[in-house]
């Protein structure tokens, strides 16, 4: 880790990566980014010339899940090397120095490479009580974020927590946790929601930046369209079962063994936009639905509050207990109305009868 020198391609060749493997990596990135024909060549050309950018990785109220995702960029090997060669100058989970020496690495980048470095933020930023619920080196997260992100070329908010507060931001949000977009204003920011976010999307975003000099196209929530433009439901390999009406009813039943749709087990695929079915996890090994568990909607806004209960399609009626589904409540309401009308009818009949008797 040090000053940028030579292009990424030069460094790759020095590390013994063949031209063939390099081109394979460029093709993979072009596919991930959904680039048209010629995309791989464009990426190759850019990486041959691009100098190693510096990246600093900030961790706030996190569980380290996005770092774990980052560390799974194992295969193809070239992706891992590219990420190494990004000159990751600061990352608390993997860097050698600690304490003041570690902080020096961070603030040297901020000072000497102002406007030229990338920041990845993982974890939420607490705002309550002066930001005391997360400090690094004695400094509150909000202050670190403002300084480091404020002087960066671009900030990548990786994971649900850095996007919208994630799990610490879930009700009742005891620490006032928010994501980068709500904590730091006036910065170039791109969001990669997910719990955790998929490293393939991080690599794709950085490669896009290196190739085209700009961040990828995003939707209205600042999420790159190449990764968050499709619904899980529309790319799911079990979609045919959904359309056919073949649903798993109980864990382990015949349908579950046959790989039927997990809709009735609470799958939030119809509500969630992410490329999990296409890219999958752990170098394309699998993803939740393929493994037999419904999507929990972890890339959706405030998913801990909006996509729970994970095992129900619709949330429960608030204030009536865990089993009070909308159907039970609605059916109860209709039944109560019918009962009320019957009572009304009987009352009418008895009133009529008593008024007739009065007349006699």
């Amino acid at each position: 880790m040090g000053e940028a020198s030579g292009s990424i391609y030069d460094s790759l060749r020095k590390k013994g990566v063949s031209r063939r493997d390099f081109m394979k990596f460029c093709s993979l990135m072009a596919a991930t980014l959904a680039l048209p024909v010629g995309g791989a060549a464009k990426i190759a050309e850019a990486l041959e010339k691009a100098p190693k950018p510096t990246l600093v990785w900030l961790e706030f109220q996190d569980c380290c899940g996005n770092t774990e995702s980052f560390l799974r960029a194992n295969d193809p090997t070239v992706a891992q090397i590219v990420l190494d060669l990004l000159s990751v100058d600061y990352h608390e989970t993997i860097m050698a120095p600690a304490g003041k020496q570690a902080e020096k690495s961070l603030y040297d980048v901020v000072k000497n490479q102002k406007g030229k470095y990338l920041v990845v933020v993982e974890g939420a930023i607490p705002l309550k009580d002066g930001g005391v619920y997360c400090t690094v080196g004695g400094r509150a997260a909000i202050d670190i974020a403002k300084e480091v992100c404020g002087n960066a070329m671009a900030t990548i908010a990786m994971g649900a927590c850095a996007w919208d507060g994630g799990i610490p931001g879930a009700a009742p949000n005891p620490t006032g946790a928010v994501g980068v977009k709500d904590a730091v204003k006036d910065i170039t920011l791109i969001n990669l929601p997910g719990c955790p976010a998929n490293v393939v999307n991080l690599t794709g975003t950085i490669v896009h930046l290196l190739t085209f000099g700009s961040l990828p196209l995003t939707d209205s929530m600042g999420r790159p369209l190449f990764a968050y433009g499709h619904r899980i439901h529309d790319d799911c390999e079990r979609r045919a079962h959904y359309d056919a009406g073949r649903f798993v009813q109980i864990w382990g039943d015949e349908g579950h063994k046959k790989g039927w749709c997990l809709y009735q087990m609470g799958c939030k695929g119809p509500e969630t936009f992410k490329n999990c079915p296409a890219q999958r996890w752990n170098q394309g090994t699998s993803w939740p639905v393929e493994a037999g568990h419904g999507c929990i909607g972890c890339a959706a806004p405030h998913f801990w509050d909006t996509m729970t209960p994970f095992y129900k399609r619709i949330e429960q009626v608030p204030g009536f207990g865990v089993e009070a589904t909308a159907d039970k409540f609605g059916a109860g309401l209709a039944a109560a109305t019918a009962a009320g009308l019957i009572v009304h009818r009987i009352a009418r009949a008895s009133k009529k009868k008593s008024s007739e008797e009065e007349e006699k």
Partner: protein
Amino acid sequence: MATERKKTYVWEIPVRLTHWVNFFSIIFLSVTGLYIGGPFIHPTSSQSYTMGWMRFIHLLAGYTFLMMVIIRVYWAFAGNRYANWRVFLPLTRRQRHDLGDATRYYLFLSKKPPYAAGHTMCAGAAYFVLFLLFLFQIFSGFALFSYNSPGFFHTLLGGWLTAFMNIQAIRFWHHMVMYFIWVIALIHVYLAVWLDSVEGNGLMGSIFGGYKFITGKEWE
């Protein structure tokens, strides 16, 4: 007792058409909607396309329902005075007075039935609430569908709602409002049958044929 009866054309064709098409649409929407929310038919063959058909019928019925709402809104300005938008809101003092009278009668607090050639004010107000529920179902339904088919048209029809409510909340209320509509429909049928026998002016027949045989007790 012989009374002078005046045959009056109250419910024009667009009113009756939209009423009955809505009736059938809501049945189709409810059955298919209940399936979509919680599939209750279990697959019998490998060729089944149950959810596919349910969603298709739901969408068809939804578009039909949307057409009926648009026609009725237009007719609320183009139709006769019984169809006019003013009958749905208690704008005049007389209307507010009628609203109180009708409610008191339904609750056995008065012995004077709310005769009306068109809608009683209670009916008008109830149908206005129902109309708002219909609008919500259309907007929330198309908001849910816009996730399937994004684009300008579906954003206009309901996708915009996702900027104000999260998708799961939209789904929850879309489901609940169906039950609210059932409740109003139940009360509506009950009151129609009751008021028909009380007013004796052909109320029930009028939603089929359009004519009431008013006795003069109605407020014209």
